[in-house]
């Protein structure tokens, strides 16, 4: 554990001495701000339109959570599909290329500790980034009255999603010494998780049911609408564990090849 934290500290500091972290955060927050602005603007237009119609029933149904936060979180999830590979691609690939891998694997530490350390750092980075995007609900709370519980659940969903992405990114990075290959295969895997349920839209066989269960948006959108279900949590946690387990095996494999 102590070794993991040593590695995590070094990794996290490493993110911030490179421009990559700042670029990723800026892109994430800029796009988030743009989505927020656009959605809020649309909300305002609808609000004026419905007010003019003098129909209180319709006006009642116009809801900040549903119209602004929910679509924004869905958009940010897609942005993460592109940004996470950029963050995780270095983690193992770079060590292999520069030769520091040889130091890590000959130091008296377990491979599990190396993987855990890198995972903690990447997850912490995601927490910081999503935490900064917490400014959007704060603005809503200052000027309106959105439902706080629903927003919390949505952001929790985004955190689970980001951490699952990071685990998959670590795995693809552990497979290669080429960062581009790591990033692209991570991107492919994440995108696949997004679209895997497409053939299942209509079908009802068990296989299609499985595809729907594997689909990430299926679980994420539950949390975004404010439902924190153990089934969804179990899905995310098992995704993280499987990816980290595979990463550990992949790193360890250097010792039995």
């Amino acid at each position, binding site marked *: 554990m102590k070794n993991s934290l040593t*590695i995590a500290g070094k990794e996290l500091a490493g993110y911030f001495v490179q421009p990559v972290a700042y670029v990723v955060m800026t892109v994430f927050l800029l796009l988030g701000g743009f989505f927020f602005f656009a959605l809020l603007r649309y909300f305002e237009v609808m609000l004026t339109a419905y007010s003019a119609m003098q129909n209180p029933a319709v006006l009642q149904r116009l809801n900040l959570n549903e119209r602004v936060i929910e679509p924004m979180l869905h958009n940010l999830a897609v942005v993460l599909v592109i940004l996470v590979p950029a963050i995780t691609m270095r983690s193992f690939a770079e060590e292999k290329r520069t030769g520091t891998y040889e130091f890590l694997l000959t130091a008296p530490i377990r491979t599990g500790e190396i993987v855990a350390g890198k995972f903690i750092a990447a997850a912490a980075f995601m927490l910081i980034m999503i935490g900064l995007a917490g400014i959007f609900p704060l603005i809503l709370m200052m000027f309106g009255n959105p439902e706080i519980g629903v927003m919390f659940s949505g952001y929790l969903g985004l955190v689970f999603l980001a951490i699952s992405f990071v685990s998959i990114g670590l795995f693809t990075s552990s497979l290669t010494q080429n960062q581009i290959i790591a990033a692209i295969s991570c991107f492919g895997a994440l995108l696949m998780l997004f679209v895997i349920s497409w053939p299942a839209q209509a079908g009802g066989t068990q296989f299609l049911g499985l595809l729907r269960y594997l689909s990430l948006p299926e679980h994420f959108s539950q949390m975004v609408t404010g439902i924190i279900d153990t089934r969804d949590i179990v899905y995310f946690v098992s995704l993280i564990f499987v990816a980290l387990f595979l990463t550990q095996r992949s790193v360890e494999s250097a010792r039995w090849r």
Partner: protein
Amino acid sequence: MIEVKNLTKVYGDFVAVKDVSFKAESGSILGFLGPNGAGKTTTMRIITGFMPATAGTVLIDGLDIFSQSLEARRKIGYLPENPPLYPDMRVEAYLRFVAKLRGVPKAKVETALEHALEICGLTDMSHRICGQLSKGYRQRVGLAQALIHDPPVLVLDEPTIGLDPRQIHEIRTLIRNLSSDRTVVLSTHILPEVSQICDKVVIIADGHVVLQEYLKQLPVGTSLEEIFLKAITKERHEDGSTAEEKLEEVGAGHA
């Protein structure tokens, strides 16, 4: 003490190291010689636990590098062929990181750091960023990271490569001093280096040990160079090619 017993490493169908055995005693320096591609780096990587052997064992102070890996690795300081530096880190931050991972107790990290910086002549460089150092300084930082936890066993893969003559001299003296109470294995292409600082020499060619001898016991009057060339050509001769042919090749390699 390092005991290497019947080490074999096969990559696919290429045999990199075949049945290599030697022993390095504590308090002495073992020079590991061989032409390029002879299997020196592979052997060192196996000794340090970076990769497993296909067959054979390595004992570090009696601990098996494969089955008691963590305990054995704790005893080793290893300088790989390319110094394992993180290009974005400052020298002192990097060495602190290494010290913690190599198990130096928290209270002793700073003293260990200062000591390592001092003996490797890096005190003035401690705030520099590793990626911006010259080859010689990177080599020294590499050496510092191998020494920082005061290991009883040092494995150095070409420690003096890329250094200027003055630095080579300093590093050799340093290694000599360090060896008084520990086991040092170093690989090199530079034959005079072996005659100057090593106590024992192991020459490998094409993955085989062709000579293993204490320097004191080498025949008087013959230079190490002659012995080296003779040892590796004899080995190759057995493969079926002519000695002249191979001698030429070796000569070209050294030119």
